[in-house]
């Protein structure tokens, strides 16, 4: 199982870098263009949300994007250390609608070892 993890200061300018990384990993796995577009957008949304949550909480702890390639499934986890409850963010209507419309599976849980959210997205069951 190959793993790529990106950790970044919660700033909007780094969300594009996160999209680049996710798209590069998905492309390497041989996913087709439609899935690549879905990964790019959904991972961007999840990371932008993590940045918003961190800004809302006034916390600068790095956001973590983790990409695991396991048996042709792409498992993505976006973890923020905002100390906010997983569902604490307001105004995430459009963002979460997109994430849920684009990924094959979406699971949110509390980030272990430190308050925050862990949003897991899966493609290719």
């Amino acid at each position, binding site marked *: 199982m190959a793993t790529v993890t990106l950790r970044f200061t919660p700033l*909007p300018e780094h969300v594009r870098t996160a999209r680049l990384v996710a798209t590069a990993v998905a492309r390497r796995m041989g996913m087709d263009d439609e899935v690549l*577009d879905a990964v*790019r957008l959904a991972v961007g949304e999840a990371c*932008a949300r993590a940045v918003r949550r961190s800004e809302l909480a006034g916390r600068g702890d790095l956001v973590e994007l983790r990409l695991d390639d396991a048996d042709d499934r792409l498992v993505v986890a976006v973890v923020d250390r905002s100390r906010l409850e997983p569902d604490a963010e307001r105004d995430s209507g*459009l*963002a979460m609608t*997109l994430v849920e419309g684009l990924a094959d599976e979406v699971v949110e849980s509390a980030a272990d070892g430190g308050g925050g959210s862990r949003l897991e997205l899966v493609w290719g069951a």
Partner: protein
Amino acid sequence: MDLSVTSREQGGRTVVEVGGEIDVYTAPVLRERLNDLVGHGHHHLVVDMEHVDFLDSTGLGVLVGGLKRVRSHDGSLHLVCTQEKILKVFRITGLTKVFPIHDSVDAAVGAAGGTQPGA
């Protein structure tokens, strides 16, 4: 900044041509340009999305905000978009029911958008 916004007058509408990536980083620029146009009396907008490569929820939020703003002046906001990738973003969020979406700028300018503009 991989976003470009240019505007011109056509058939009594203001056509706003957007190019590049509209995302959490660049969307504030688009919001400012739309607010500026509306503030200067341009209430009938056609936003041409044909050169947009990427659109996220922040960008959608800016377009929804623009729509609300022009409506409060009895204006209109039409979109031009034929790119499947971008249309999908409007479809998933149900916003295809909110925005009139056209195949070309001419079609968008020609469409009767709410109240006809004074010009």
